[in-house]
């Protein structure tokens, strides 16, 4: 079996008496997109900070690309790119200057800032002060900055939070393009649709623990309930909505009876969302 890109074992971190990350373990394969989902305070940021060398774990261990996150911190940081949730660009400098600065800090030779800016859709305004950029443009520039060193692993924290659909799609395209070249992506997000769309697997984090980790499809299969939503017209002319749960023994007979005995107006299939599943597992919503 190939060495995992990320291997986490019994990782723990407390802020004083508050246990932020509670003995978590998981592996991520090379080229995989893992979505880390959880409400505020679930411990997502603390996990990212430990994996990216900003925090030292109090217990447990982790390797990134075979390197220990504590002993080989600098080598690990050379191989990863990070896009933060908050904007932290040099706003009095141009996009080109921002990217060139980080290319020099990563000691990347033959770096072409213009080419990278064109890829993220900022080609025309590369010389302009970043302060004049919209939020979407800044987010795309942060994504470009994360890609400066051509990293083997990307940590993306809420990469599309508050962005317009066009900017969101640009970021999604960039993430997909990165995975096609074998880059592993660690995605933390509140956006369940985004996680569902982009992630090969998702991990639900609640109160510092991973409460579920699987592909979105399998999680829906395991925890969710598929159903049909049927609108029927009653003899008195009123409209009633009936829900038929699938995957049960009596489902075929129920559906047969419904179609035989009622006047059907519309039929919709329904499946559980990741948010529904998270709520089912933890008893709390993702925004909480």
């Amino acid at each position, binding site marked *: 079996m190939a060495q995992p890109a990320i291997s986490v074992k019994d990782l723990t971190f407390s*802020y004083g008496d508050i246990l932020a990350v509670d003995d978590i373990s998981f592996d991520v394969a090379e080229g995989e997109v893992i979505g880390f989902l959880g409400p505020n305070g679930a411990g997502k940021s603390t996990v990212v900070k430990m994996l990216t060398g900003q*925090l030292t774990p109090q217990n447990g261990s982790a390797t990134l690309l075979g390197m220990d996150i504590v002993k080989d911190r600098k080598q690990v940081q050379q191989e990863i790119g990070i896009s933060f949730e908050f904007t*932290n*660009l040099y706003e009095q*400098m141009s996009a080109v200057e921002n990217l060139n600065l980080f290319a020099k800090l990563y000691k990347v030779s033959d770096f072409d800032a213009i080419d990278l800016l064109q890829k993220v859709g900022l080609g025309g305004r590369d010389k302009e002060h970043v302060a004049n950029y919209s939020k979407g443009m800044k987010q795309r520039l942060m994504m470009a900055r994360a890609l400066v060193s051509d990293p083997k692993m990307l940590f993306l924290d809420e990469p599309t939070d508050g962005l317009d659909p066009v900017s969101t799609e640009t970021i999604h395209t960039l993430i997909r393009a990165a995975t096609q070249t074998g880059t592993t992506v660690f995605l933390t997000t509140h956006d369940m649709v985004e996680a569902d769309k982009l992630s090969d697997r998702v991990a639900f984090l609640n109160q510092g623990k991973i409460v579920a980790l699987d592909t979105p499809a399998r999680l829906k299969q395991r925890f969710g309930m598929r159903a049909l939503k049927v609108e029927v017209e009653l003899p008195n002319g009123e409209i009633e909505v009936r829900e038929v749960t699938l995957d049960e023994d009596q489902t075929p007979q129920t559906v047969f009876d419904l179609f035989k005995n009622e006047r059907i107006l519309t039929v919709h299939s329904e499946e559980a969302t990741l948010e529904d599943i998270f709520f089912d597992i933890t008893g709390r919503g993702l925004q909480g």
Partner: protein
Amino acid sequence: MDIQRIAVLIGKDARLGATNFMVLYVLVMPVVLSLLIALVFGDLLAQTPRLGIYDASASEQFTRPLLDHPSINTTIYDSEETLQSAVERGSEEIGLSLPAGFAASLEDDSAEVVFTAYRWGEAGVRNLLLLESAIARAMTAGIGSSIDQLPVTVNAEQIGSANTQTWSQRLLPLLLIMSIVLGGLFFPAASLLDEKKDRTLVALTSTPTSLLDVYLSKTLMGFILSGIMGSVILLINGAFVGQVALLLLVIALGGLMSSSFGIILGSVSKDMDTFMGIIKGAGILLYAPGILKIFPQVPEWIGRIFPTYYLMNPLLEVTQNGAGFADILIDIVVMAVLVAVLLVLLNSVIGRQQQKLALET
């Protein structure tokens, strides 16, 4: 520590500093002040030397050359009292009181030439030299031969305070402190506070760049600015003379002291407002030795209480009194100890900042 990354960060800080109003203000202000002081008190547009004469003997052959002299401003007074009063208030730098019989004594080779000269206590050396030279020439013209051959008695009297320092000399210490300390202190502090506010510090330290690299780059930038500013102020004031290497050593230590202090202040300050509050409140402690130097009657030991005295004093000793390394050794040792203490503190501050950064959400 990575030299290449530190150099990259210095380049970035230089680029951003050039557009930072506060940094520019701090760098430009001492130069502007220095030029203003040179303009008002110093040698840039030095006032024409002023000579007052009370001539009781109508000795035209002596006073005419002085009245016609293109480089001095000569005024004739009608009484000795008004002449004395003019010298006392500084309207005249030298006042000559020529007694009755003065003209005759000039013409008589054997007679003793006697007159009184009043000198304003705060008159500049340059003007005094020019006036004395003009007076000697006028006397030579009056008698038709060198005054060396005449018995001359001058009753010299000083009027006004006895301070021999010019205003530009008295203000130079304050300007030096402002340029070296403010230049070195403001840049690292302001730059670090900006990085904290804009959260770019997190972005930098998420690359292989360490927090130590970031702090060192800002400290070095402050050190460089401090050195440039100190040298510029000395040059403007015509004081970058004599032992240049010794002056550079003192400026370097002063720059290191102020830039280390600046980065520490920037690190412990929550934001720019807090930092400015500290500077406004405690800034007087930085400038105090310079302010005290404006008033020569204040005892020297009071200045020694303040750390910046040990930067200012050796610079003044070298530039104004021609002191050598041995003369300023104690000041240099005190400054080196202060720098060492600040560097130890800096190390601890970096550790604390690292923790704060990691715990920030």
